[in-house]
């Protein structure tokens, strides 16, 4: 590990070189993996989204120390907003308005045009993503507001409650007005279209995207987009961490009373943590909806909130590289294992003793328990500055007396 570093402050040449190597590997990956079919790249695509979620949650849990157990709600908000505004769902919503507020229905059709009635709204990705970020941020502040005065464990349960409440609403807001289409979820969500190019490929191209004369599978195209977004998320959360705001968050985490005494408006700063964290979740949700083409409430349950938390905890709470590592391990590893372990068991025992789903749960559960017991700062925690205090102080005293 000594050769590979990201410390741009102290070892700039090595750090930039490491990052260049890593980038090259990351860019080459899909072309290599495509040789083995689309599934590997698809797995990494989803993993990249979960890494974004983990980084967003890291702002709330890692920087500010607020244990949010309902974080997936913001993922859901972004996804469902996309579902509503980039699919035929809005038409269904309009239809359901007939019984309730026909005047409202007429007003909307008048504003948006007749096709809304049959096609729904299809906003472009350039509109949907910022909207997802903003609406999710609003929800973040909304859900965070009642928790501001609560101590740690109560805050966790209340946020869990909010996560559940959002899921229940998503599951049931189809009657009388059809916002979310209930348990069936929303289908036919538009894929992402940038500069006239659809990342799902044109119909008839067998999910192949053509840039210039060159064609690549759709999952590869999404890979590059999500990789870009992930890098942007790492960049932004890194900048947030090393700023006046980031310091305020850590101050609140370390000692809220002292933070207040030093002039930090903890209420506003905490709300900002919730909002900023939520906005990343919302963008990831929008990407998820477009990538999958459908959303349903079962993707947004407590299990998912806990999964994202597990990534943050396993990797290194508050330490961005650690969180990315945690995300990679917990998002990709179970899938990798599934491809390895199940055939291995078939070969050895003639049947699958532990299936992939069980394995995945085992990994998550063990990760959280073992990490908290034996390495509470995570697998890759922030480096501590000079953690040999006695040796260092003696040295300093010598220097003073010299």
């Amino acid at each position, binding site marked *: 590990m000594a050769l590979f570093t990201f410390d741009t402050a102290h070892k700039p040449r090595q750090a930039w070189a490491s990052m260049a190597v890593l980038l090259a590997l990351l860019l080459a990956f899909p072309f290599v993996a495509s040789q083995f079919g689309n599934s590997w790249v698809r797995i990494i695509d989803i993993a990249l989204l979960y890494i974004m979620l983990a980084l967003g949650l890291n702002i709330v849990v890692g920087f500010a120390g607020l244990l949010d157990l309902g974080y997936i709600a913001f993922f859901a908000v972004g996804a469902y907003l996309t579902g509503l505004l980039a699919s035929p769902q809005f038409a269904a919503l309009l239809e359901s308005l007939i019984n309730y507020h026909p005047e409202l229905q007429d007003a909307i059709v008048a504003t948006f045009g007749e096709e809304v009635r049959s096609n729904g709204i299809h906003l472009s990705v350039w509109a949907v993503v910022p909207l997802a970020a903003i609406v999710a941020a609003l929800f973040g502040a909304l859900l965070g507001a009642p928790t501001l005065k609560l101590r740690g464990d109560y805050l966790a349960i209340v946020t869990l409650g909010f996560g559940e409440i959002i899921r229940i609403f998503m599951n049931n807001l189809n009657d009388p007005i059809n916002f979310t289409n209930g348990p069936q979820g929303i289908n036919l969500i538009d894929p992402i279209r940038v500069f006239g190019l659809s990342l799902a490929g044109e119909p008839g191209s067998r999910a192949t995207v053509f840039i210039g004369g060159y064609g690549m599978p759709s999952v590869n195209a999404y890979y590059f987009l999500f990789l870009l977004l992930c890098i942007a998320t790492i960049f932004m959360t890194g900048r947030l961490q090393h*700023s*006046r705001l980031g310091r305020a968050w850590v101050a609140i985490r370390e000692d809220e009373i002292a933070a*207040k005494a030093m002039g930090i408006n903890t209420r506003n700063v905490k709300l900002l943590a919730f909002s900023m964290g939520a906005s990343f979740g919302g963008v990831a949700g929008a990407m998820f909806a477009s990538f999958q083409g459908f959303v349903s409430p079962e993707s947004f349950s407590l299990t998912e909130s806990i999964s994202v938390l597990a990534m943050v905890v396993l990797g290194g709470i508050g330490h961005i590289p650690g969180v990315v590592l945690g995300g990679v391990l917990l998002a990709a590893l179970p899938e990798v294992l599934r491809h390895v372990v199940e055939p291995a068991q078939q070969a050895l025992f003639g049947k699958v003793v532990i299936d992939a789903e069980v394995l995945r749960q085992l990994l998550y559960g063990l990760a959280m328990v073992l990490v908290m017991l034996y390495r509470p700062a995570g697998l890759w925690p922030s480096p501590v500055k*000079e953690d040999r205090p006695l040796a260092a102080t003696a040295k300093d005293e010598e220097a003073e007396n010299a």
Partner: protein
Amino acid sequence: MSQVLLNISGVNKRFGGLQALTGVGIRIEKGQVYGLIGPNGAGKTTFFNVITGLYQPDSGSFELAGQPYSPSAPHAVAKAGIARTFQNIRLFGEMTALENVMVGRHVRTRQGVFGAIFRHRAARAEEAAIRVRAQELLDFVGIGQFAQRTARFLSYGDQRRLEIARALATDPVLLALDEPAAGMNATEKVALRELLVKIRDAGVTILLIEHDVKLMMGLCDRISVLEYGKLIAEGLPAEIQKNQAVIEAYLGSGGGH
């Protein structure tokens, strides 16, 4: 005729069945070092907490530099110009010494999310200024060489200094110190005294809770004495030393001197 910096009167505070403070007031002039003493449990820290907004008083009037201020929220009090340290040191343990002091600059600076992400010129300038000032303050209190050390690894005396540096970073007009000399040996106390004089000479008024009588007598311009939540004496150190009520409070009645 010096200006009155802090003018507080009529503070009452009750916790359930206990009347912690009864009609307590204080009047500090600009540039003074003002002491607050009293036996354990007299209500000194409670009074501090009321002044700095950690506790809500049942009644009282509060004036800083001639303007009324509302001690309803600690961060507002810091903004108004009162900074404090704590009896049991409350540093941000996982941050470096420098970062701790940089947090102190929060209340006098403005950059938010936009500045954090985009680091435009104004944001970079502000951040650099914060860093410079923080290092200056660390040097001022004498621990400049530990700027990059994680705070919880500093020695006890250095941690106390760090807390003072952090409080000074808020550019206070009044620095309220809660037992800054607790746990210090004689040498450290001498160094602390010098630091406090340095701070006063730099123009910051000081309000000080302490138990070390010698330190207080030599340092303070005026002293108030609390016992069971009430003011029992106020005046020059020499007067306080001879005050019968004060002597009884500390030694019990019937004790000689």
